[in-house]
């Protein structure tokens, strides 16, 4: 009887495999980034302790962390300022880029007229414009927001243009065969098609907008993490200097993670999301 059962089992057991055969491997993959970060800081800590490096050259990561934990209000307040500047700069750059790229994608003339200006902004080290912004807007958030926007602008406009342009010809012809308007082609085809390009630009631009905001604060500011770092440098407050760096890095990471989460939902259809 048991003989027959086994054979029946073999014949009938053509079912999908269990979903969790690699539980351990998957857990390891989740842990890996934390393990990597932990090792990095452990190595740093060990090196500073063993080689007896002067704190002024390189402080202990543990003492930097302690400084942050002991002054949460300080870092929160200044971090919030920088985040706001970077945030508005980021969206300003995004909307300006999409607007310009839309005009360029629809008209050869606009494209040829605009391209030299874009190349100009691309090849100018835009940081030299910060004093100009300060001259214009003085002691307000605007010089910082504009600098952040200027830094984020180039990847956004380049990728938006590529994305809006690179539509599938067959699909375009299909839409034209039912007499779809330019507007319909734009919303139904060009915009969705450009999302993967915009997301990959956004990943870079989060970092760039933060850099822009901080550089703006170096030049003229009484607040923000760029300011706390500059003040710390002039007064040799090593822990505060490095604390500002750590908090900035943390902010960047958090925003990129949020972006990745959004991207994974929005771009479920795209092949870039298959391997994750």
């Amino acid at each position: 009887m048991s003989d027959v059962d086994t054979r029946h089992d073999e014949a009938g057991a053509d079912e999908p495999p269990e979903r969790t055969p690699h539980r351990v491997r998957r857990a390891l993959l989740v842990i890996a980034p934390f393990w990597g970060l932990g090792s990095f800081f452990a190595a740093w800590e060990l090196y500073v302790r063993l080689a007896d490096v002067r704190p002024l050259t390189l402080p202990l990561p543990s003492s930097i962390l302690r400084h942050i934990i002991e002054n949460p209000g300080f870092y929160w307040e200044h971090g919030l300022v920088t985040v706001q500047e970077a945030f508005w700069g980021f969206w300003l750059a995004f909307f300006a880029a999409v607007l310009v790229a839309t005009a360029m994608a629809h008209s050869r003339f606009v494209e040829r007229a605009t391209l030299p200006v874009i190349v100009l902004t691309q090849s100018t080290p835009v940081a030299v414009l910060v004093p100009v912004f300060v001259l214009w807007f003085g002691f307000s958030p605007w010089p910082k927001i504009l600098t952040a926007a200027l830094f984020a602008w180039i990847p956004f406009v380049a990728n938006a243009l590529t994305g809006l342009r690179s539509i599938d010809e067959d699909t375009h012809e299909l839409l034209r065969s039912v007499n779809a308007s330019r507007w319909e082609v734009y919303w139904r085809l060009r915009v969705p098609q450009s999302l993967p390009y915009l997301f990959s630009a956004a990943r870079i631009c989060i970092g760039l907008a933060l850099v822009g905001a901080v550089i703006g604060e170096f030049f003229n500011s009484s607040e923000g993490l760029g300011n706390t770092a500059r003040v710390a440098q002039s007064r040799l407050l090593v822990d505060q200097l490095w604390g500002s760096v750590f908090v900035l890095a943390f902010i960047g990471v958090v925003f990129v993670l949020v972006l990745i989460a959004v991207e994974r939902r929005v771009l479920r259809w795209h092949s870039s999301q298959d391997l994750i």
Partner: protein
Amino acid sequence: MTNRTNGAPVAESTKGIRFDAVSKWFRRKDQAVHALSRVSLDIAEGEFVSLIGPSGCGKSTLLRLTGGLLLPDRGTISVRGEAPAEARRLKHYSFIPQQPALLPWRTVRQNVSMLGQLNRRAGVAGISAEAQLELLEHIGLGAFVDSLPKELSGGMQQRVSIARAFALGAPLMLMDEPFSALDEITRADMRYLLLDLWGQAGCTVVFVTHSIPEAVVLSDRVVVLGARPGRIIEVIDVDIPRPRHEDVEDSDAYHEVVARVRAALKEGSAPR
């Protein structure tokens, strides 16, 4: 023959498609490619016509002219009594391109419904959402209506593309080598699926292909084109009764028409 000057409007009573001495050139730098030369052809309403010919003979060009996506340089085209561009405005066309051309961010169901949504805004309704689901069910995609295109095989994607075209319920269907990217077996199945759907819809079809068997099995008439310049060599009637099933490919009538098409193709490629 009345002496029509180029571009003059033609009074038409026909519900089908009429090509009258249509010529088309493409200019590349200083050189002009003569893509089509004096093509004249009448296609009746509800007829299934295949265009067959060597690569570069202007089949796709003729199809684009029919759909109003290109304008002829000489001659006139009338579609249900209108110029092609006007027919397009009236949403008379369904188009099946060579690639499935599905929108990867839309599910199967959303892909099938999209063109209909665009048409509905212009006041032209296609088949209802339930009928669309039934159609997908009928062509064997019932279990995949909420799948994304990337989760389907190539043959399944092309079936979605066909369903999308029939969902419009348009009176004219233009197909540019819709099965050329498929393997031989899937391709053979697809012919009969297409015949089945066409039998129910009753639209006029212009079907571009490279495959003689495909053209003969599907069509009422096969238009054989020659290259350089693109022109009509011969229009061959296919006298095989409908409905047609796989067994027509074993019949004598089928083999006879295949032989005639092959001979016409050879004639067209012979140096003049």
